[in-house]
């Protein structure tokens, strides 16, 4: 029997500390697809690329490199379900492999904690593991609860695919990977004008001025409505998910406009399609529902309760 693919599971901050349903759903989905997730003991914040990268590049790269060295110990690739963590770890890995000066500065810092960046592993996103390692065919076969008639608006976010010349994954003006994966569930794709626009949270903007960040998000929601609405929004990033999910509560407060979209991480969508009960991973623990004391629109999501 061929060996099961194994990944070091980089959790980051938002998934394990605010949206644990994504962590649980991911564990279910990877198991269903015969892929192993290994704990990365003592991993820290990636650290947030737009925040730490904006403050001090060497510190950002050194803390990221420390996380990379945990995986370098045994050589399995890393996988992460967050566009921000992916940006930090992938970019740092790339820059450290190509920039001698940076590598020297970073290794001087790592020396203090008896570590060294060697550049021996690859960094992937869950989406890469799903698309390249498991493959669309395997996912399609695993679907036992087809999302028939469920209209899915997608929010790919930014750092999975940009900058396109460096990441070399897909054309960031016409991305297809998240769409291809989402369509394996049998749902319907809803195109809308601002699909490729940023959610507004990144680059330390959410921390600097939340109202400006929410203004991006509101534009996305209005764009989805202008396209005839959707039954769910699907994203591959927990920070985007937080901004789109909890952001609805905050938009109501700051702008007096109420939206009620259900927002799912791609792992959560797949867990549902693979037949898992939403309680098995706690879909109803999204902060929007906790704060509003509401529940997902089960029927719209194609779930019988």
């Amino acid at each position, binding site marked *: 029997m061929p060996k099961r693919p194994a990944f070091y599971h980089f959790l980051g901050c938002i998934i394990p500390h605010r949206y644990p349903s994504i962590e649980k759903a991911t564990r279910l989905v990877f198991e269903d697809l015969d892929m192993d997730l290994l704990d990365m003991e003592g991993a820290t914040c990636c650290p947030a690329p737009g925040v730490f990268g904006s403050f001090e590049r060497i510190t950002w790269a050194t803390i990221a490199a420390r996380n990379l060295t945990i995986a370098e110990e045994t050589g399995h690739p890393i996988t992460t379900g967050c566009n921000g963590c992916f940006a930090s770890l992938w970019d740092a890995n790339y820059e450290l492999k190509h920039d001698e000066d940076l590598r020297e500065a970073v290794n001087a810092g790592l020396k203090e904690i008896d570590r060294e960046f060697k550049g021996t592993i690859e960094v992937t996103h869950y989406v890469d593991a799903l698309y390249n390692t498991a493959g669309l065919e395997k996912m399609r076969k695993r679907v036992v609860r087809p999302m028939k008639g469920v209209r899915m608006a997608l929010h790919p976010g930014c750092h999975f695919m940009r*900058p396109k010349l460096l990441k070399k994954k897909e054309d960031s003006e016409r991305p297809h990977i998240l769409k291809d994966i989402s369509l394996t569930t049998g749902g319907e794709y809803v195109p809308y004008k601002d699909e490729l626009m940023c959610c507004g949270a990144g680059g330390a903007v959410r921390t*600097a001025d939340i109202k*400006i960040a929410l203004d991006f998000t509101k534009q996305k929601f209005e764009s989805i409505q202008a396209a005839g609405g959707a039954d769910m929004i699907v994203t591959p990033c927990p920070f985007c998910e937080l901004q789109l999910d909890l952001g609805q509560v905050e938009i109501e407060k700051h702008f007096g406009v109420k939206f009620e979209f259900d927002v799912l991480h791609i792992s959560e969508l797949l867990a549902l399609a693979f037949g898992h009960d939403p309680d098995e991973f706690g879909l109803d623990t999204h902060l929007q529902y906790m704060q509003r004391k509401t529940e997902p629109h089960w029927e719209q999501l194609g779930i019988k309760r």
Partner: protein
Amino acid sequence: MTSAEEKPPIVLDEPDREFVEMIKRTGGPNIQSCYQCGTCSGSCPAGARTNFLVRGIIRKALLGMKQECISAPELWYCTTCYTCTDRCPQDVKPTDVIKAIRNIAVQEGYMLQNHQKVAQKVLETGHAVPLDKESWQKLREKVGLEPIPPNASRFPEAIADVVKIAKKTHFDKLVEDKDEDEE
């Protein structure tokens, strides 16, 4: 936006010739390839709703107007979405230029208090968004996970490592609370 108010010409008393070199060293090596086409600003979701003008900041930087660049509050409205970087015909990588200018701004003491707090959280807990309340542990248990994940929330030695790194790069000094009268 036009205004009736008269705009004085830009007089460069003391252009900072070093500024462009600093930006090139700090992560924006291609800044001098900019020919001011405006593709970046035209693509920019931050510029569409605020006074943040990425092309303008690059132009000011090229003119050596360091103070205007690093003290502008709108410098922090870029979400680093990289749309401009993917579209710039000159490979300037405007996002990286903005991040480099932010690095210089922080070095010179321009850091928002909220950002400083996030940085401090990473040094205290290992995470920008920490597991700082029991309710977050409960949330994890509710979805069927162990209350504390196997990251720095469980391994305090990881936090000690981050602190050592920050000491080495002097990042700890950069983000520590400054005396009140300096504000």
